[in-house]
């Protein structure tokens, strides 16, 4: 079985954390949001979402809880923990630095 590369995996983690900062969501909703926001550019549905959610939960960045969903079924809702928020801020800073550096490097002089 093939594993997403670290870069892709890391990106996916950040995207999931970002998506969940606004409100707790279940896996399906996360998938839908991601698809909508990235305009299908990042197709996360190729089997990496749930493993990623579980990995983040295992690492303590997410916390899960069973609740009733909008269609009345029991669903597992994920929520960002304090550690998750910290990680997200850190990643965002890193990303800004990296993208700024890349833009500088790519700026035509």
């Amino acid at each position, binding site marked *: 079985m093939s594993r997403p590369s670290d870069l892709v995996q890391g990106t996916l983690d950040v995207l999931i954390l970002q998506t969940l900062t606004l409100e707790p969501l279940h896996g399906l909703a996360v998938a839908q949001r991601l698809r909508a926001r990235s305009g299908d550019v990042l197709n996360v549905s190729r089997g*990496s979402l749930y493993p990623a959610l*579980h990995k983040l939960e295992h690492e303590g960045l997410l916390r899960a809880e069973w609740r009733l969903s909008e269609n009345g079924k029991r669903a597992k809702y994920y929520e960002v923990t304090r550690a998750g928020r910290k990680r997200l801020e850190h990643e965002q800073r890193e990303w800004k630095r990296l993208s700024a550096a890349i833009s500088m490097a790519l700026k035509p002089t």
Partner: protein
Amino acid sequence: MRRWWSYWARLIDLARRARLERDIDDELRFHVESEMEVGVQRGLSEEEARREAHDSLGGPPLLVREQIHDARGVSFSDEFRADLRQGLRLLRRAPAVTAVVLLTLGVAIGGTVTTFSITDAWLFRPLHFPSADRLVVAFMATAAKPTEPAVWMPYRAYLSWKQSVRSFSSVSAAFFRGATWRGASGAKSLVGMRVTPEFFTTLGVPAFRGRHLTAGDATGSPAVVLSYGFWQRDLGGTTDIVGGTISLSDIIYTVVGIMPPDFDVRLLDRPEGAAFWTLFRPGDRGYEPGGMGPVTILGRLAKGVSAQAARAEAAAVMERAERRYPLNFNQPDGSGNRFVVNLSSLQEDNARTVRSTLLTVLGAAVCLLLIAAMNVGVLLFGQGLKRRNEVAVRHAVGAGRGRLVRQFMTESLVLSIGSSVLAIALALAALRVFVAANPLGTLPASGVHLDLRAAAVAALAVVITTIVAGLVPALRLSATDVGATLRSGEGGRTTAPAQRAQRGMLVAQIAVSTVLLVCAALLAKTVIHLRAEPLGFNPDAVEVAEVALPMTPFDSNAARNRFYDALADRLRAKPGVRAVAAATLPPLAGGQFTSVRLSTDNVTIAPRMSAPSVTPAYFETLSIPLVAGRPFDRRDSGDGRPVVVLNALAAAQLFGDAYRAVGQRVRLGDDSWCDVVGVVGNVRTTFFNTLEWQTAPAVYRPAAQSLAQPPDPEATHLTLWVYIRADRPLSADDVRDAALAAGPRAAVLSVQPVPDMVANATRQPAFRMTLLLWFCGASLLLAGIGIYGIVAQAVTERLREIAIRSALGAQPRALTLSFVRQALAAGASGLAIGVVLSMMFARLLASMLYSVPISDVSSLTAAALLMLAVTGVAAWVPALRATRVPAVHVLRT
């Protein structure tokens, strides 16, 4: 430590795992079902909707689940379960080894748990009394042996302590009293206590039915409190007994209360609790103010007062109070003994006789456990050797050393837990046998059973065996050169640390076995000494009957002697009876101590000697040799001159030697002068339960002159011990019939063979020896198996080397000898360590040895030779295999 924590975390994880599986399934199902609903609404067929849902999920749910597991990482529980499966598979593959290991560990853990449970019940588990740790018992000891009871406390000490000692919040006195009780099934001899009114409140236990004895009961009609056991067993447990009456030794008592089932007070080495309690009554001789009647004093320490402080205060109060009396405990007795007060906790007092036995056996059980665990380590390692390749491959594909160690530990944990189940079953059975057989002759007051503490010990034993049995092979194997193993395809070379570990194991096993062996040898020699020592009389083919003569109708010396003569005639008429005699003391006992004076002076303290009454045939019946003068005969009748016969020690103490004694006069107590007509040989006696035959001075009086009122004023009967030497033993019924014919009110309480009573006196040492010999045999067997295993492995490991050497012309004998020599070398260092260790342990044994020094050379030599012999044989057998190695075959493969 961390390793154990990680095991624990795994177990928790294992429990969580099932829930996690369910959660993942639910979560994925929610995704698929919700997506399918949307799809179906969009007009897709169910099949299409499902495919689309799976697509958005990222694949079929089963696959996604695997990926989720993958993402979460390999959990501890997965690894643990894999190890467990692997371990169980291996154990199934070698059922013989598994069975041997389970049995070995089962017996070793079971033995430890059993001995611990018994020891715990005696020594550690608190007694069934409120704040039992504050209860203390006082006795008089001699300055020479300040922790051993020597004589009873005088009643007046209780009075002075009650008045002045502040260290006690409550203090009471008690003394044993026998009673004859006649039930439906015949007369029975009971042991009860006479107590002071504070007795029950000092112990702090309320009555089960009715009430305690109070000060008021001392003067009114006689009152008694019964034990639960007596009430249930002999009185049928009817509740209307409270308020009713009971006849004890022909005195009518009102039953005022019954104590609860677990109220079991033993004082000064009684093997069991009392059956009833009555009060000391005014008019009891010796129990008036200033009286020296014997008592044991039971006190409750005031809060926060140590036993030591209480002892100091009580001793000072007693010293001051004694000064008022001309005859007192501040003076040495006739033999020059100085008396000191000793206080011991009630629990210590109860366990005095069994303490050393229990600790010895517990120590032996722990030694055996260690040996067994090491042995299982060797066995597992032997299995491990066959798995050398498997381990090497696993190591090569990335299993870390820690991972391999964990696997071995898991396997040995499986074995330990499996065997602990067996161990608990064995322990339950063993405890039943122990209670039924009662080898110590006494059972703890609180009963013996497996409880949480025993379970904790079992768990501890499992931890020890797991570590010892698992760590040894794990470290040993993971220390081997895996690369070499794989390259050579077989065997591989043993690295130096691995060989060191092996030798260390051998040395340790031999050392521990040696300790057991030496201790067993010392105890065995003690028993041999005890058994071999001449008793001074011949107990073979002699029975003794305990006959109680109540005061009515046997109210005089003449009436009692008439009864005895009639009984003896009837007994002699029975077929096979050779001789009949009687005494007022049972075999091996001293008693009826009387002061013996040579002058009319009543002020100096005279030596007190055992002064039993005996019939003329006594010395002949028991084959006690005459040293000088004559034994008693017809001349010494009730109206003849008062006479005595001394034993050799009494003659020596009073007159210097036996021949000088005959014809002299002595004065017994306050009575008139008696002529010494003869001197007989000394007879051994026992003192409490101490491990020693004693020789005490004794003055024998003719029964015809001395079966008068017994010295104990409250005694309601006189006990005669009737000795019968017969070719074949008489039954108890034979004796009862004869007694009934001789006088209907006489009660035959027991008939016992005298040899059994002698054996009982050496019961504890014999029990210790027997158990230790068993432990020793088991440890030798285990050590033998262990040595065999280690040498066999060494041979297997070095097959190639042996093959090459024998191909090059090495003598097979020389090869064998080299293996045996190596084992013996390890054996010698194990032996050296073992001997040093056993010297330390033997110091603890000192109080249990009788005329054997702890550094007894012959015991040490015997133990060492046996150990070396076992080592040699256990090494030689597998080493022989080295000579039969088909060299060509080994070298070709």
